[in-house]
């Protein structure tokens, strides 16, 4: 031991009083954060990692959350003994925090400069002018272009990445000793994620801060953390140097987390998941060697399938309103001349950052949004201008799985109602009992139990809900499914399960997918062919097995380099 750690959490227990009794969210958790070091806390949603950080900040929901046991020592002082006034002096000043959602963490009615200056005026007693100047300086430091002008902007005038930079500027404004970052990059595109991670690393070095970095994705902290704490079901299951975690993880859960993220290049035929490494009750399992075996997509002999979907010069535009009477002054081309062909039984991956038009393209193909020009040819028939009954018949064959499993299920309907609704609309399967049988069969196919069908969506986890969405899309036995960021909202460990499920279903039902994502590694794993979208156009298209090696476009290469490598770049540290 060289010196006292900055933060030391000892045997921390956090319990919540809920309607169903007391739930232990954090169970005997202990870890140290040394001066100037970064600790990564990794675990899936509900593992207790965010609750731990809230306990450190003294922000647990009162009176439901209680800490019956444990100590949180900050520079040797137990924060749990501090009262609210004392905590307020620490919060934002000595310990500050960055949240996941930059869109909602900023107050929309204040200029961003004012919001950064506010913390400075509260804690450092600076005058209005001094605080504003410091805020501009900070914005320069976090890499916001033209800080003097940008400080006058309102949050809605900035992009997601810029807002997260503003949040970071606010968090470091009082030069805290400890910075807690709670999933700061999860809501961001991969390229922005990389920039934010680099920024955090740079600032941490510059300010000699300690950092507590919380994430569900082991991959992203490789570049940034010195030590890693892995949490699973309220407990710490593994604690080690980052390099040791990545080179030789001990606990089966950690091994599972490392394996479940698809890698650029070759992957096993189905992704490994946590359940391959660990039984339900936490016992280690031997992974069968055929599961690990790398699958080469090039080795598949191409059958000459017919073209199921062809898109020709598709343009979708949205009006830009302006002027005194809200007239349409111009059009924004979200999709600007896209063409491709997709063979039956194959998967086309579409990659690009938010705003590149990939979602609009998907919805236009399904005719949920009307195209301005171009043609959509499905199964040899031009469907660009079919309406009413014909369009309704088309809906049976083409389905979509949305991004957010929380908002895409009607909260007031039971699972059986949700699943039988498509049958009712298209008058398939006679009696209600028959329809329920069809639903039951499918719900078991997607890995849920058929006795859960009388429940409501809010009783399921995110991954389970996405399975329900998949089941609903498949109720009509479609030939073609668009997956619109269908795994982006899920934890990496759940993401692997859902990707495997999609591949299994494709094989069983001969489905054709268009898979939309901002994550090239996911697309690379699931797709046969990959199209890279930028500003409404497909700028590059190639076989998935080739694009990561032979990218011709600068933009594709920047997307590729932004993917977390899942390994450390630093030498092992010497703290114990």
């Amino acid at each position: 031991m060289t010196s006292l750690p900055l933060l030391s959490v000892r045997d921390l227990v956090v319990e919540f009083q809920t309607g169903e009794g007391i739930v232990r969210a954090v169970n005997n958790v202990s870890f140290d954060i040394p001066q100037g070091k970064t600790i990564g806390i990794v675990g899936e949603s509900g593992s207790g990692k965010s609750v731990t950080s809230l306990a450190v900040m003294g922000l647990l929901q009162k009176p439901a959350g209680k800490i019956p046991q444990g100590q949180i020592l900050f520079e040797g002082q137990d924060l749990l003994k501090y009262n609210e006034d004392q905590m307020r002096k620490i919060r934002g000043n000595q310990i500050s925090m960055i949240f996941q959602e930059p869109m909602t963490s900023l107050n929309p009615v204040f200029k961003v400069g004012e919001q950064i200056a506010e913390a400075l005026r509260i804690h450092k007693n600076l005058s209005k002018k001094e605080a504003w100047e410091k805020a501009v300086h900070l914005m320069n430091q976090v890499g916001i272009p033209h800080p003097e002008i940008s400080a006058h902007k309102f949050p809605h005038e900035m992009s997601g990445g810029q807002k997260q930079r503003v949040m970071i500027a606010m968090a470091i404004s009082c030069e805290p000793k400890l910075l807690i970052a709670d999933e700061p990059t999860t809501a961001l595109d991969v390229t922005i994620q990389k920039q934010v991670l680099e920024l955090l690393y740079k600032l941490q070095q510059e300010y000699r801060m300690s950092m507590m970095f919380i994430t569900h994705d082991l991959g992203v902290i490789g570049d940034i953390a010195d030590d890693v704490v892995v949490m699973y079901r309220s407990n710490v299951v593994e604690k080690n140097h980052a390099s040791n975690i990545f080179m030789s993880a001990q606990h089966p859960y950690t091994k599972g987390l490392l394996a479940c993220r698809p890698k650029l290049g070759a992957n096993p035929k189905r992704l490994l998941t946590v359940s391959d490494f660990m039984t339900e009750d936490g016992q280690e399992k031997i992974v069968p060697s055929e599961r690990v075996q790398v699958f080469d997509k090039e080795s598949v002999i191409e059958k000459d399938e017919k073209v199921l979907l062809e898109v020709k010069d598709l343009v979708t535009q949205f009006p830009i309103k302006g002027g005194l009477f809200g007239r349409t002054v111009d059009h924004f081309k979200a999709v600007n001349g896209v063409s491709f062909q997709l063979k039956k039984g194959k998967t086309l991956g579409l990659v690009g950052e938010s705003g590149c038009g990939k979602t609009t393209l998907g919805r236009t193909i399904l005719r949920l949004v009307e195209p301005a020009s171009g043609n959509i040819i499905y199964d040899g028939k031009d469907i660009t201008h079919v309406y009413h009954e014909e369009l309704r018949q088309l809906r049976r064959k083409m389905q979509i799985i949305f991004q957010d499993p929380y908002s895409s299920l009607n909260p007031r309907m039971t699972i059986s109602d949700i699943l039988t609704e498509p049958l009712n609309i298209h008058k398939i399967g006679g009696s209600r009992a028959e329809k329920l049988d069809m639903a039951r069969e499918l719900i078991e196919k997607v890995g849920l139990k058929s006795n859960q069908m009388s429940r409501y969506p809010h009783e399921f986890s995110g991954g389970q809900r996405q399975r329900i969405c998949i089941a609903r899309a498949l109720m009509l036995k479609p030939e073609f499914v668009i997956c619109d960021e269908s795994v982006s909202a899920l934890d990496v460990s759940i993401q692997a399960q859902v990707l495997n499920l999609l591949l299994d279903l494709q094989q069983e039902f001969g489905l054709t997918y268009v898979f939309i994502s901002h994550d090239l590694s996911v697309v690379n794993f699931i797709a046969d062919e990959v199209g890279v979208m930028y500003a409404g156009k497909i700028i590059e298209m190639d076989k998935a097995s080739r694009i990561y090696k032979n990218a011709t476009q600068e933009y594709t290469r920047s997307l590729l380099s932004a993917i977390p490598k899942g390994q450390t770049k630093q030498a092992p540290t010497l703290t114990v």
Partner: protein
Amino acid sequence: MKTNTLWKDAFKRLSNDKLALVALVIVCFYFLIAILSSLGFVASGWSQEVGASNLAPSMNHFFGTDIFGRSVLLKVIRGTQIAMSVGVAASIIAIPIGVILGALAGYFGGWVDDIITWFYTTFSSVPNIMLLISITLILGKGIFAVYIALGATSWVTLCRLIRGEVMKHKEREYVQAAGAIGGGHLRKLFRHILPNVSHIIIINTSMQFQIAIKSEVILSYLGLGVQGEPSWGTMIDDAKLELVRGVWWQLAGATLAMFLILLAFNILGDALRDALDPKLKGK
């Protein structure tokens, strides 16, 4: 794990709130009185003389008697019947208008929205009390005119709220998902969106109910309301002459009855909003 519908959850939250439960009991009690009175089980003899004129409250006559020697208590009960019937009638008229217009405006937008928005902004730009008075003057005095007048003025708030909620929900992915499986406009609007905004109807009705009761009292006080029947408003109107002679019990009875039900509805409305509005939930 037990299956709970959102409504059951909401009721559970509501029943944890003791004050709200008391309010709910009071509201139910008023409804019971009103129903019993309208069926003639209680207060049917309100118009009979039970004692001397203007007797002060005593053990025999809890609220005393009025100038004609009639029991003030029975008149208050009769007034309860009028007040509750006004609330119910106003809701029956206002809910369908407000919900349908609000849903259509919010869902379809465009010119439908323009027309409906124009209609309700015009409506709400006229002070309510003016509108009430003019409607009762056109339809003639009496309880029926009060029903129509209150129904016609109280749909505006509901319509505005429903329109906003429907606008928000129609962009949600579950509604788009309903479109993707081939559902039409009617299915999306009535099967998917409306059940998700129905809590607004309940919360708003409990708020509008008390406004209706108050408005009836005001109209009757102005002599535009109920004729030939005791209502809280006419009782308060009578009291302004009696007070000079020290007869305060008629005013006290009517005000107390009104105060209790308005308070109960206020508390219940707040509690319902806490229990039903997903925005205010901890999650």
